[in-house]
């Protein structure tokens, strides 16, 4: 056990024999890991945003100005019982005016119109889209909403769902190639560093072999070195990403987006650290074998 810890420590200490080589390697791995993790964070946030909207489509229903409050209340009460409706938000003319005023961020004063709002009563009906026959279903839903008493207009934007679905498909498609690229670059960089270390220390390693050091005794510190480089560089990259995240966390948290950017979950962080350390070990193994 004593030898194990000594070799573990030696693996890390040996890296500092060539500090410049170590710095360059760490910089390269950090940069690649930072870019890869940033992409992962983008995918994660996209998935979070799309997860709340994906599969749902919103229909905006406008009523004519002649509809009375009592009539509206009755119709709005019945909206949520329609099959496929998951959420209904209703707006009286005054409420619609208030939302409009908020979207102007008080730069335009609409207070004077209160009580005589020109906006029609509206409802935002959010429906769960079926997996098949979406276009027919949407047309049928429009017809159904249009048939409600005193409805003037129904609008929805199926293109929005198509775009969001395409984004999800794209990020899922790009995920593995990007991760694969990142891990390959890390493997090449670490492998190259270990090869250089082997070249620099060739004579020393030869002496170790000749005095009876086992293969494990010689190779273990080099594998530790590879793992350490991957782990340390990915740690630095994640710290940098956290700093960047701190700066941009609320960048999109403004009307009308209201999107908070979240950092990577702990599971992803653990996965990145262990994957990079693992790649460091594997590339060291390959370098030693060659």
């Amino acid at each position, binding site marked *: 056990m004593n030898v194990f810890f000594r070799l573990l420590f030696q693996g890390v200490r040996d890296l500092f024999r060539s500090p410049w080589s170590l710095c360059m390697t760490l910089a390269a791995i950090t940069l690649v890991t930072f870019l890869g993790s940033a992409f992962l964070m983008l995918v994660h946030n996209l998935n979070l945003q799309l997860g709340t909207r994906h599969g749902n489509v919103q229909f905006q229903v406008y009523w004519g100005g002649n509809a009375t409050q009592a009539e509206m209340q009755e119709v709005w009460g019945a909206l949520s019982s329609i099959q496929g409706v998951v959420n209904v938000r209703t707006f009286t003319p005054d409420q619609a005016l208030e939302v409009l005023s908020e979207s102007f961020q008080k730069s335009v004063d609409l207070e004077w119109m209160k009580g005589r709002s020109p906006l029609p009563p509206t409802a935002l009906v959010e429906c769960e889209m079926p997996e098949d026959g979406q276009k027919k279903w949407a047309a049928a839903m429009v017809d159904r909403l249009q048939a409600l008493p005193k409805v003037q207009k129904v609008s929805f934007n199926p293109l929005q769902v198509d775009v969001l679905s395409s984004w999800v498909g794209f990020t899922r498609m790009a995920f593995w190639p990007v991760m694969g690229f990142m891990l390959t670059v890390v493997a090449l960089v670490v492998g190259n560093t270990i090869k250089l270390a082997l070249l620099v220390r060739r004579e*020393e390693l030869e*002496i*170790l*072999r*000749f*005095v*009876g*050091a086992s*293969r494990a005794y010689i190779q273990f510190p080099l594998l530790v070195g590879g793992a350490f480089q991957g782990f340390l560089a990915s740690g630095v990259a994640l710290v940098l990403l956290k700093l960047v995240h701190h700066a941009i966390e609320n960048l999109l948290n403004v009307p009308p987006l209201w999107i908070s950017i979240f950092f990577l979950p702990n599971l992803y962080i653990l996965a990145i650290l262990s994957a990079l350390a693992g790649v460091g070990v594997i590339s060291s193994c390959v370098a030693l074998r060659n």
Partner: protein
Amino acid sequence: MITISKLSYSFGRQLALKDISFSMKQGEFVFLCGPSGAGKTTLMRILHGALPVQRGKVDVAGYDLNTLTESRKHLLRRDVSVVFQDFKILPNQTVFANVGLPLVVRGIARHIIDKRVRAVLRSLHLDQKAGVPCEELSGGEQQRVAVARAVVVKPKLLLADEPTGNLDRELSLRMMDIFQQFHRFGTSIMIATHNQEIMERMAEARIVTLEDGVMHEGKKNGDQQ
């Protein structure tokens, strides 16, 4: 201790060893002599597992070198120590660290390493230099460090390739005394040399000669330093 049967070795088309058969008993002291380029170093390197057995059969200290895999060669090297012609010591490490290295890689406790290294350094008159980096030593002192490192593990077999090549006459003779001392404690020793004087001083030693890759028992006439 060593059994060689019809061993041949070539570097490309150049045949370095030709159909050698040789055996050495436990506790024997053998001088391997012959001119430069005769194949002495090649034979030493094969016996130590640094070169593969191309043809023939070689058995050293109970290890069949024909079947010994790379991952198990360290076991052979724990029983067979080598003193190299070019010392092969770590120049930036101290004398103590160099001599203790074979014990460290065997995972021996620090206090035992300390005791054994100091004893060996004393016997080779290097105890005053224990803390000195090897790069600051003279050629003769570095040679003694290499010998100390080889004997500190009490090997079954000690192979020495021209161990007196860098030493003056007096130091060469003192070095041979040291080898004799370890031989008396039961270590089998094979020394590759073409130093006539040290061979003559050890009348009880067996002499084999390598010339153009061919081995002869005994010394050839006119084999001079």
